[in-house]
């Protein structure tokens, strides 16, 4: 473990990232450019999140990593091991015990507290990117609050599908100012973003950091006659019977049998330990 500086990155790099984080917190939703480093993992595997975690972790922290809500997927296990190895921090799979949580694609079901930091891995930080490919132009649009185009995307959804079909990376407006990509979390998680914990977003390949201080106003964009709907699969969890959790659809055999289970594995396990039983629980 001693071969590495604490949490892999050198101290100057961590200071640079912390400055970007502080600037991001001061201007909620604004994408702060930062000098993203090469990390020992491919782009798209969470290099932005890992750099933020490295700059945020202290030796006393307890670290948790989730990928699509689960603690036991390849990406989550590798990143957890990476920081066990390079920072020697305590790790956990329990949401309530963690002080820093790095996540990809989900926000934990249990409400976070003001003692916690949630770090998101972001593939494409620019919510306008698919509508306007030029970075010079999107920056100008953010600067001038020229956000008509964002609603054109939602309009297109309704005209094509009859409803707003964007189900993840659903654009939000921060404090009535910046339009922000909440990273590819399901829109079910959008209302949770007004939370007590600090939220930090890191995009390694795109070299951007943005942030939300606690209890920042986060509004999902919509139309008056097509209001935002944080929908999920209309089932209870097959293992723990939770009605309020976001569900994954799991195919269980070749005959098309399927079950819906909580995507937040920690939440599901805690409920089962507490005695909740779903219809397919073993």
């Amino acid at each position, binding site marked *: 473990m001693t071969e590495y500086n604490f949490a892999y990155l050198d101290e100057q790099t961590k200071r640079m990232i912390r400055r970007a984080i502080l600037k991001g917190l001061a201007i909620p939703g604004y994408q702060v450019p930062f000098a993203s480093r090469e990390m020992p993992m491919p782009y798209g595997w969470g290099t932005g999140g890992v750099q933020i975690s490295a700059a945020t972790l202290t030796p006393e922290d307890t670290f948790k990593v989730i990928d699509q809500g689960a603690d036991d997927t390849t990406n989550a296990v590798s990143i957890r091991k990476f920081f066990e190895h390079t920072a020697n921090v305590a790790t956990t799979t329990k949401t309530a015990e963690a002080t820093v949580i790095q996540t990809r694609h989900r926000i934990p079901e249990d409400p976070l507290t003001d003692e916690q930091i949630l770090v998101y891995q972001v593939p494409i930080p620019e919510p306008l990117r698919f509508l306007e490919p030029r970075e010079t132009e999107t920056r100008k649009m953010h600067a*001038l609050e*020229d956000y*008509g*185009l964002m609603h*054109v995307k939602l*309009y297109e959804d309704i*005209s094509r599908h009859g409803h707003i079909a964007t189900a993840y990376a659903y654009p939000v407006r921060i404090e009535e100012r910046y339009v922000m990509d909440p990273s590819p979390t399901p829109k079910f998680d959008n209302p949770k973003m007004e939370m007590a914990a600090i939220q930090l977003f890191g995009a390694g390949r795109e070299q951007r950091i943005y942030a939300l201080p606690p209890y920042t106003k986060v509004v999902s964009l919509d*139309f008056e*006659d*097509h209001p935002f709907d944080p929908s999920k699969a209309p089932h209870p969890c097959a293992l723990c019977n939770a009605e309020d959790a976001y569900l994954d659809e799991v195919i269980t055999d070749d005959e098309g049998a399927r079950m819906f289970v909580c995507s937040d594995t920690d939440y599901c396990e805690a409920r089962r330990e507490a005695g909740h039983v779903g219809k397919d629980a073993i």
Partner: protein
Amino acid sequence: MTQDEVTPLLSVRNVQKSYGAIVGCTKVGFDLYPGEVMGIVGESGSGKTTLLNCLSGHLTPDQGQVIFDTRADGPRDTVAMSEPERRMLARTDWAFVHQHARDGLRMNVSAGGNVGERLMAVGARHYGDIRDKATDWLERVEIDTARIDDRPSTFSGGMQQRLQIARNLVTGPRLVFMDEPTGGLDVSVQARLLDLLRGLVRDMGLSAVIVTHDLAVVRLLADRLMVMKDGNVVETGLTDQVLDDPQAAYTQLLVSSVLQV
């Protein structure tokens, strides 16, 4: 009421734009009154598009003033305005019709979305209302409303141009800039487009600045004409006066160069 009592909608004073040593346009000045259509003609490279871009805020002139009679504050120099104010004008009181429809349209967004964009940019947040307005405008520019959800890339050149016009006029602008609106269209399509434009300009009481090299277009649409050559204005006057009795040598050449069928 004489013209002295009416505030010009657009006053252009001594506008100049160079590209390094090359003069784009120089010492251009004119007044455009409400409801008036001004034609700018000249050969390729005469500076007419440069001038139009300076007037519409796409380019910043090196010197000169472009004073627009704003709804809120009266006449203001748009060159000295802040970028957000100019953009606001560009999507409310102004419209810009590009020569190539694909420059003015979003080709991967449906026709309805194209027409609705300006509405949403100024704060429309009711899908049903936006769609009703888009449908109404497609009818007014004679596009089959059944194609509201089709992308402009599936439209013919003439339809794309009409869609671009609908997209621009939906917010009820007062001043329209047009850069060769009929360029690249065949003559029968041109004729229908001109017919449509003439109707819209008259019905909505629009003021317009039309840049073209096609004298027939200005004869049909423009009240007044400005002839440009090498960045300079060589002749101005009423359209039929200039075309029927050209004074400057270059204008005489231009008028006599038109092919007769």
